[in-house]
């Protein structure tokens, strides 16, 4: 099921765009207001509620000891899951995750994994036998657009608050999860040759191409994904990647670095 948007609304957004404007007065590169509330869920090892404009995403982290993967016997394990529950949007349906939900979870996972944000070697308990398993569960509460950036932000914010629950499993004292990098995902839609960052749900439904760029603290790129049935020129890609780096830096400095 797709988001339905009236032709007149589409025209309105398009005409604004021609004047260089967006319906909520932002510039093409502006993000909506961001807020992060941490540790709302005391049963979880870490959690964060991210509000990006009216979009709301809750990320919870649970940890437990378990077996490592055979090819990485001395490293902790990250498992990321996303639930697009039907309470969050008229277009979400109950049931097993569809490809949108799977893509979202895999992109959040890619950011955390490829940036090497979590020191997985430090999460080995008994080499080859027992390591910490980190479950990152993304719960979308309200989809008003760009839930990917919100989810990714929620995941790293939650990881930064996570305490390893060692005492619960008789493995010594609890300690903060070792986090070494802060990956930030930034998404832009391409519409009529303009790149619009942090699209709201109306903007998402008029565009058919999205590009997400995930950057690390040193300004490098650790993940990228084009999504949607449109095309991008190499120059558009370069432009979006440039701006994405700047936006990510702003967000990282403002919300995640103490």
């Amino acid at each position, binding site marked *: 099921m797709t988001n339905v948007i009236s032709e007149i609304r589409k025209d309105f957004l398009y005409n604004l765009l021609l004047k260089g404007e967006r319906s909520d007065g932002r510039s093409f590169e502006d993000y909506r207001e961001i807020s992060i509330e941490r540790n709302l869920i005391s049963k979880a090892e870490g959690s964060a509620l991210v509000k990006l404009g009216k979009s709301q995403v809750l990320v919870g982290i649970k940890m437990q000891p378990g077996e490592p993967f055979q090819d990485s016997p001395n490293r902790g394990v990250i498992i990321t899951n996303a639930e697009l529950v039907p309470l969050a949007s008229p277009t979400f349906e109950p049931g097993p995750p569809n490809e949108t939900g799977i893509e979202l979870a895999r992109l959040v996972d890619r950011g955390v994994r490829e940036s090497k944000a979590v020191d997985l070697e430090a999460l080995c308990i008994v080499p080859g036998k027992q390591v910490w398993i980190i479950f990152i569960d993304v719960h979308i509460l309200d989809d008003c657009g760009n839930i990917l950036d919100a989810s990714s932000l929620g995941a790293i914010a939650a990881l930064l608050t996570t305490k390893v629950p060692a005492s619960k499993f008789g493995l010594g004292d609890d300690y903060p999860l070792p986090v070494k990098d802060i990956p930030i995902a930034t998404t832009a839609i391409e519409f009529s040759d303009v790149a619009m960052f942090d699209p709201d749900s109306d903007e998402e439904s008029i565009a058919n191409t999205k590009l997400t760029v995930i950057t690390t603290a040193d300004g490098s790129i650790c993940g*990228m994904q*084009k999504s949607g049935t449109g095309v991008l020129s190499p120059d558009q890609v370069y432009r979006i*990647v440039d701006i994405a780096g700047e936006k990510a830096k702003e967000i990282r400095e403002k919300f995640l670095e103490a």
Partner: protein
Amino acid sequence: MDESNISFFDKEGRRLDGRRVDELRPLKIEVGVLARADGSCYIEMGGNKVIAAVYGPREVHPRHLQEVTRAIVRYRYNMASFSVEERKRPGPDRRSYELSKVSREALEPVILTSYFPRSVIDVFVEVLQADAGTRTAGINAASVALADAGIPMRSMITSCAAGKVGDQIVLDPMKEEDNFGQADMPIAMTPSGEITLLQMDGHLSQDQFHQAMELAIKGCRDIYNLQRKSLIDRYNQLENVEAEPVEEVKACD
């Protein structure tokens, strides 16, 4: 896992399989390899062996998926359980769902779906042997199979990856380079340079990203030439065999 212990280049700067950094693996494309499918293609890209079939335009089942103004496109990327070192559990997993989605989105921009309202164009891709770059091989094969099926398209789609190993950007990474490398970036594009797929994981500086894009685009252009040639060869061959009956039909009117 330990990337520092592996040397990816010999003294002359050649890679583990003797390639230069900007060289593709050996490529082979065969058109029309399946009898039942409307279009098909078999591709070998290095150690990858991938087969693609296209069915349609045909009726959509289940019916509620129909679109009134255009055909829908479905893409199923599937790996054979014997295609990888450790047996893969058969059936779709989360990775193949994602790859199916981005691959479909890589092809859809060029397919003229509005010609076939209420119908479906099915693309099935089976990975028979995997050696890094299966999604790019799948897209290359699918694009040829679509052309072979006579599906109207604005252009072909070609796909190729660039990667980073030992701090060096390389074209078309093979398994060892993918497993122990520092980045992997598959792209797909039209011959005129419109990007229809772009994914990346690993670690690339801004400069390395630009290098990787340029290299991958170059790789795509080379692959495109072979896609084109394999289609032309196939249809030249068919024309020679069936030339006479066509002449006779013309003589009737």
